[in-house]
């Protein structure tokens, strides 16, 4: 049902202006290459969904690709704030950004409900916090058997989910392992699915019991080695903590940020050239 295509083709064919797009990967396997390609193709008015926005959305938001963010924790892990995200929220630069904030548990269950074709999920949470004051998509729900009151949140069904994985086989089955976070649910909740992978192999090693996303659940597979850099791909390369630290001063300044993105993202052909470009400059990672 899917074919191996270039990332450029996949983003052009499957991501439209105005789409709700989820790029997932919980610290591990964050699809940076796909984010850059979305920026390069100047996709607009996106509703971005992601549990932990991280640098990947700081870059997209800073380039004005998003009109809304649905999330549960936004920060540069271990370093500090996401300055582009904050600038968009507080000062509307380069454009205003609407927020829908949930908890991690809420986001995880929203994806699960979406993957299950249910309109909502039920959990214990939110009550007593200030979240329901700023987030309208939280409702009480009573158990029909015990009468106990719990919390309902609506399902997430993005137009497009993008994840990065270690491997695909020739048929387009996708294999990921290590910390697998919310990727399976994000992919299965979406109408269209793009997967970038470290490599395409003839066959997976037998009985690894990693998560396999069967090819019928995937619309496009794109081989993009190191496509999760500066995050990591278990078994392939480590997280570049140095990049995350070096991002702070870049993201803090509008001009520096624009310059960096123009040089290393807009001004390159693809992610391989992006990696050469930042390494040539020696500033990061």
């Amino acid at each position, binding site marked *: 049902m899917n074919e191996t295509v270039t990332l450029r083709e996949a983003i052009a064919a499957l991501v439209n202006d105005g789409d709700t797009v989820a790029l997932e990967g919980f610290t591990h396997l964050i699809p940076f290459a796909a984010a850059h390609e979305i920026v390069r193709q100047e996709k607009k008015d996106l509703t971005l969904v992601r549990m932990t926005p991280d640098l990947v959305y700081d870059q997209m938001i800073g380039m004005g690709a998003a009109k809304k963010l649905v999330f549960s924790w936004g920060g540069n892990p*271990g370093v500090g704030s996401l300055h582009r995200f904050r600038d968009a929220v507080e000062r509307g630069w380069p454009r205003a950004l609407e927020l829908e904030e949930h908890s991690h548990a809420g986001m995880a269950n929203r994806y699960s409900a979406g993957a299950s074709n249910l309109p909502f999920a039920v959990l214990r949470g939110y009550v007593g916090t200030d979240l329901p004051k*700023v987030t309208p998509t939280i409702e009480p729900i009573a158990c029909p058997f015990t009468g106990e009151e719990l919390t309902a949140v609506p399902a997430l069904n993005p137009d497009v989910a993008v994840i990065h994985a270690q491997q695909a086989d020739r048929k387009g089955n996708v294999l990921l392992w290590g910390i697998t976070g919310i990727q399976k649910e994000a992919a299965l909740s979406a109408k269209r699915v793009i997967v970038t992978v470290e490599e395409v192999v003839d066959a997976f090693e037998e009985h690894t019991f990693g998560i396999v996303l069967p090819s019928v659940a995937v619309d496009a597979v794109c081989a993009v080695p190191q496509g999760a850099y500066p995050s990591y791909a278990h078994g392939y390369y480590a997280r570049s903590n140095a990049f995350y630290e070096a991002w702070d001063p870049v993201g803090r300044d509008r001009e520096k940020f624009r310059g960096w993105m123009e040089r290393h993202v807009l001004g390159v052909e693809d992610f391989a050239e992006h990696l050469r470009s930042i390494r040539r400059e020696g500033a990061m990672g």
Partner: protein
Amino acid sequence: MTEGEGRGYTADEMMTVAASRELNDGAVCFVGIGLPSQAANLARLTHAPECVLIYESGTIGAKPEVLPLSIGDGELAEHADSVVSVPEIFNYWLQAGRVDVGFLGAAQIDRFGNLNTTVVGSYGGRRCACRGGGCPEIAASAREVIIMLRHSPRAFVDELAFVTSVGHRHGGDSRRELGYAGAGPAVTITDLGVLRPDLETKELTLTALHPGSTVEEAREATGWELRVAEELGTTEPPTEEELRVLRDLKSRTEAARKETKA
């Protein structure tokens, strides 16, 4: 992080050691990143080798050699007993009541142990979340909560900018009405001392000072009129073993970071 008047350890080291001692061996502990992760791993490497550390990325029984920078470092998965999906860690473990201790940091705390971990900005005059709170469910569902944060008037506030995680709510029995399984904050460890909720009112009460700290310092660093226990204890200073293990852990962590930079 200055050395405490020739005592041979810093106030942060005292705080981390004191917090680590609160974690019992064998406890299942949901660990926040940063200071709590440092203290929980110190406990694991000293008196609590059988504690089970859970990180929200889905690692159960994590045994990191070096401290993770993020909640989902490969280090956490590498030696874990089990790695599960994010829905599973929140539903089958945290919400299910399998977590004995939630070990949390915060940006702000109020007198009832309610926490703000949401960085709040303002946009069009409206207050809004600029970082997000992540997982309020830890404070809700863990059987009890250990909190760690540095004592300062910016952190210990009369009113939170945002209630991310519910502690003892408005005090007394008011938390119970929310129906959460967990009992709420059992102890708060700062760089000055130890605070425990009053049995009745649930208001945070200074019950011990670290060596060299004073009640006045604690009062000045608290944004409300701090209650002080009648019998005020003094924290045992860090043992040589505790300091050695903590410093080894931190230097291993530093070395590993430099390595990936190179």
